């Protein structure tokens, strides 16, 4: 198998169209204008020695190793900083160059330890490689003089005196170490942090021989501004910055390209292995979503896969108050089959259902909905997209005709104005944020609509030009006010609208948005955003060049979520910002495969490919293939299942990879629904919160343990490849298949590729997708069919999918969730960088050093009124429930608004959230809850009872309870 080798060309590729031909060491090579000599040489297969150059960052020219001679030019210019010229004749190895290089290497090694054999980078050290490449045989200088290598002086005269230049190893970051004694000050880490990640957390402090890499202001990494993305570790040519896992395990011997299982960016990684042990994850340069970058979660937070709390055996119990009993797969699966059949016999065919997972593969999701439709004989299937991006599906479907983002991530490189609405990519989609910030540093403008002053608003060198700190719940009003400005000031793109949309619908919409109640001045009164800011943002978006909109759950998780999506779609159509690179409307999907789970027919009213269940022709396809008669009525959505359970008509549920108790709103209602069921099957890695109410637990497999595909936010179908055997014995798709078999279905898939073949055969937008194609192309964006055999990076290029783009009126209706004397503050929720959603995975990694508990952000004014100081325990109370957590007094939130995350089960922020939801899709209104905040002494009674109940329900027979 071996390691996947990637060529380092030394400097980034040039995008110029004009080609230049030159000669390197007698070989002719043709490259785009603007390419460096170093890169051109590498294209010709000639590697020029280098240390400070790597193709993830721009050329720097500091190491003086890559010098070349050019005929007709004086001196020895550095090949990384010298661009090619037509007819240039370059020599990379001459007597003069060899001498210079050897001399330079000798100086480097004179301030570098010679402990290669015991060094963690042994076998993966560019300094070692270069010493070999230049033929270094001797270092004449010794270590008696000034050096950074030894803690104590080696000079005979002052022997044993502390060496003031030496700095101890910094091991503060949980995932990597910084050993200054091995640093050659090439600045690759500093430049990676600036150019690739965009955090600027590193610098070179001092000058001359005093120059040292410094995180923050000479701080430990953990205390600095570092976000632990690992780009510096990847860039480091020596052992100075090294993964702790490499130090612990050693160098990997083979690697497999796969896809990250955290957010919807869908980064491609090389899983570097030693045997079946994962040594490290390294982002893959050819990954089209991430282009060789990663965040702290994808690169480092995979330790949950081997966490001691992971459950590896199936378990069953009669009552949820009983301890779990470990059983064989056969026993567990036949128990479920007989229970489900009993329930259907007793309470009717519709009394059971299932939930597919946005964390699992397309193939697994497809199988779960197939099991429900074919095996259960009903459409009671739903997925966690219900609680996040279902309004996107509806809103974009209505206006454009597809339920997905319009662009690929590369498109942002051509954007001139980027509008981010209700999203904080710096925390939740960090790799996309890095790519966006790179474009902003090149001059693109940024507009952010968010109640909080998020990291995305205040990024170093990428500050928002306009921040619209709107009151939670007023999205529709503010986005419509933007449209008001565009229409009344005549900034719309008439030619585009006349060609692509229905002009009379536009006129109707324009008349509506031009009404006085939609003016920025009126909207200021209810949103709190100054009218001039709204006007300025609207003018910038409409006239600033390519305008791209990226939005998140701050848009969808509202009672008017679908309306806001349509308002956004209107805005893009009115300004002609659709159907080319650099523009578009893009939902930032929360989960690795939430796009895919929606695509795969996880909704109760849709078959794969967003085809309504009532369509006879569509049902016929499946009826004949599966040999059943599909129900033509939509089934129950998650909230309806829970309602029906409380009423007593819904009795059994198969939940694959979702923790609805923690992630769905109004926890009390969810727990009541679950408790009323007779057979709840949880299929997961851990005994999650939902499992406290389960009767059967099926252990799940991680993304490292199975083959399949994930579809990211840009509709890109990426391969997930098995790098180790499932620790629980079976991949998730095998478990679902065995369950189907236990229920009497004749399934016989040998490999997930066969499931994909069935998907392709039955779903027009996936028509040409196959594992062979993915192997050849790396990845592909749907639709992938006869019209677009290589997929579709950008949608609606020649007209909208639905024909004409549809303008829809977006009347603002205030949510029923209103503040009043009892609940005067508005709570909104979000994510932070180091944690992921309910935290089931990231809480079981060292990422907890950055976020050990959820805190409540509250404005100093509101805090003072309530006598709350920074760090105090506070009680957070809504109509639905109450919880306690610590206060973070900050002006990141406006007065009247409080904010928290939902990563920790002890906090259970969703105890607070209410059951209000989007009018079209039932997507819950997580982002607005009227609350009161007061001082508290500690956990609420509910939290204590819950903790006790959770402890009791996690007992496993024959095992001692883990000590707390």
């Amino acid at each position, binding site marked *: 198998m071996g390691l996947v080798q990637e060529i380092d060309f030394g400097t980034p590729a040039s995008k110029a169209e004009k080609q230049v031909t030159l000669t390197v060491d007698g070989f002719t090579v043709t490259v785009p204008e603007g390419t460096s000599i170093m890169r051109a040489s590498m294209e010709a297969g000639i590697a020029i020695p280098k240390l400070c150059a790597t193709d993830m960052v721009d050329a720097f020219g500091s190491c003086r190793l890559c010098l070349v001679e050019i005929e007709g030019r004086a001196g020895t210019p550095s090949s990384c900083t010298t661009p090619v010229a037509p007819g240039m004749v370059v020599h990379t190895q001459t007597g003069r160059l060899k001498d210079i290089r050897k001399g330079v290497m000798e100086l480097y090694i004179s301030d570098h330890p010679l402990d290669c054999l015991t060094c963690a980078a042994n076998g993966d050290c560019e300094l070692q490689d270069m010493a070999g490449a230049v033929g270094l045989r001797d270092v004449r200088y010794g270590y008696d003089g000034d050096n950074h290598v030894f803690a104590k002086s080696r000079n005979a005269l002052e022997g044993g005196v502390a060496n003031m230049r030496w700095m101890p190893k910094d091991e503060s970051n949980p995932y990597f170490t910084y050993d200054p004694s091995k640093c050659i000050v090439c600045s690759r880490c500093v430049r990676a942090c600036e150019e690739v990640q965009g955090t*600027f957390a590193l610098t070179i402090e001092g*000058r001359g021989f005093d120059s040292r890499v410094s995180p923050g*202001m000479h701080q430990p990494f953990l205390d600095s501004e570092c976000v632990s993305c690992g780009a510096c570790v990847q860039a480091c040519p020596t052992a100075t910055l090294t993964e702790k896992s490499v130090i612990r395990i050693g160098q990997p011997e083979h690697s497999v390209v796969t896809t990250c299982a955290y957010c919807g960016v869908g980064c491609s990684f090389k899983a570097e292995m030693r045997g079946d042990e994962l040594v490290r994850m390294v982002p893959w340069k050819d990954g089209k979503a991430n282009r060789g970058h990663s965040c702290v979660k994808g690169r480092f937070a995979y330790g949950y896969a081997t966490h001691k709390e992971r459950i590896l055996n199936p378990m069953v119990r009669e009552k949820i108050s009983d301890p779990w009993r470990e059983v064989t797969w056969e026993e567990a699966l036949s128990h479920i089959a007989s229970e489900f059949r009993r329930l259907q016999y007793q309470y009717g065919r519709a009394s059971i259902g299932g939930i597919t997972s946005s964390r699992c593969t397309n193939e697994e999701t497809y199988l779960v909905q197939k099991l429900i439709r074919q095996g259960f004989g009903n459409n009671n299937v739903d997925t966690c997209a219900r609680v996040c991006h279902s309004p996107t599906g509806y809103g974009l479907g209505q206006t454009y005709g597809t339920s997905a983002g319009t662009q690929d991530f590369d498109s942002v490189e051509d954007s001139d104005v980027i509008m981010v609405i209700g999203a904080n990519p710096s925390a939740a989609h960090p790799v996309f944020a890095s790519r966006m910030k790179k474009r902003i540093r090149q001059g693109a403008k940024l507009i952010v609509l968010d109640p909080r002053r998020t990291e995305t608003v205040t990024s170093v060198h990428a500050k928002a030009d306009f921040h619209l700190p709107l009151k939670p719940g007023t999205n529709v009003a503010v986005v419509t006010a933007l449209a008001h400005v565009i229409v009344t000031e005549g900034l719309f793109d008439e030619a585009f609208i006349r060609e692509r949309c229905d002009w009379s619908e536009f006129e109707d919409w324009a008349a509506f948005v031009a009404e006085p109640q939609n003016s920025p001045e009126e909207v200021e009164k209810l949103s709190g955003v100054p009218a001039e800011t709204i006007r300025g943002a609207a003018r910038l978006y409409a006239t600033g060049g390519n305008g791209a909109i990226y939005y998140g759950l701050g848009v969808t998780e509202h009672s008017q979520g679908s309306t806001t999506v349509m308002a956004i779609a209107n805005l893009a159509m009115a300004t002609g910002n659709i159907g080319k690179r650099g523009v578009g409307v893009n939902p930032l999907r929360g989960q690795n495969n939430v796009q895919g789970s929606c695509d795969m027919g996880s909704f109760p009213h849709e078959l794969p490919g967003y085809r309504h269940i009532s369509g006879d022709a569509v049902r016929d396809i499946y009826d004949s293939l599966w040999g059943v008669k599909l129900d033509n009525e939509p089934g129950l959505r998650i909230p309806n299942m829970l309602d029906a359970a409380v009423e007593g008509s819904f009795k059994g549920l198969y939940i694959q990879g979702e923790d609805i108790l923690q992630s769905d709103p109004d926890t009390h209602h969810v727990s009541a629904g679950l408790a009323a069921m007779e057979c709840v099957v949880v299929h997961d890695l851990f005994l999650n919160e939902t499992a406290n109410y389960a009767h059967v637990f099926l252990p799940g497999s991680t993304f490292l343990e199975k083959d399949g595909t994930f579809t990211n936010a840009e509709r890109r179908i990426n391969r997930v490849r098995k790098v180790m055997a499932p620790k629980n014995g079976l991949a998730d798709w095998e478990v679902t298949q065995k369950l189907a078999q236990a229920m009497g279905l004749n399934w016989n898939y040998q490999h997930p590729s066969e499931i994909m073949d069935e998907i392709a055969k039955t779903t027009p937008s996936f028509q040409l997708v196959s594992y062979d194609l993915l192997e050849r192309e790396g990845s592909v964006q749907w639709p992938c069919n006869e019209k677009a055999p290589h997929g579709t990076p950008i949608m609606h290029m020649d007209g909208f999918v639905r024909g004409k783009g549809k303008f829809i009126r977006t009347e603002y209706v205030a949510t029923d969730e209103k503040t009043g004397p009892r609940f005067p503050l508005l709570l909104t929720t979000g994510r932070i960088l180091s944690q992921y959603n309910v935290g089931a995975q990231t809480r079981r990694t060292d990422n907890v050093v950055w976020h050990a508990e959820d805190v409540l952000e509250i404005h100093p004014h509101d805090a003072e009124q309530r006598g709350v100081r920074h760090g105090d325990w506070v009680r957070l109370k809504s109509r639905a429930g109450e919880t306690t957590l610590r206060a973070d007094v900050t002006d990141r939130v406006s007065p009247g608004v409080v904010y928290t995350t939902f990563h920790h089960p002890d906090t259970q922020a969703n105890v607070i959230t209410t059951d209000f939801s989007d009018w079209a899709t039932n997507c819950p209104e997580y982002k607005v809850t009227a609350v009161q905040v007061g001082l508290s002494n500690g956990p609420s009674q509910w939290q204590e009872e819950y903790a006790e109940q959770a402890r009791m329900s996690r007992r496993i027979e024959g095992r001692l309870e883990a000590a707390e």
Partner: protein
Amino acid sequence: MQAQSTEARTVAVIAEMRGLEGPLLPILHGIQHEFGYVPTESLPIIAEALNLSNAEVHGVATFYHDYRKHPAGRHVLKLCQAEACQSMGSDRIAAQVQAALGIGFHETAKDGSVTLEPVYCLGLCACAPSAMLDGQPIGRVDAETIAEIVAEVRS
């Protein structure tokens, strides 16, 4: 005047200079002028105001030796140690000055009277060995000048 906090004084300096093109160096100069050195607490405040990272400001502030981390003595004496002055005996001069003041390079006398620093070329090579006392250049430094300098800083 000391009643004002470091933060408030830093903010005042930033407010005065932030409109300049490339305001970081002028602000650091202003801070040094205000405090006599560049307090570490000032750096994050500057960073936030200019939308820079703390690391960047730290990198710039540490690159220039003249931005001090700590307050200097009442007088600052710089002795040139560059090539031309070395050839004219700056080593010997440095040893004499250090003995006379009882401090080494980068040190401040216990009574706070003087800080001694090496400097690498004052552009006074024609009058080597050279020195600079509180911004005033001094040429052809010898035993006599040293005595005068010592007398002045002790006064």
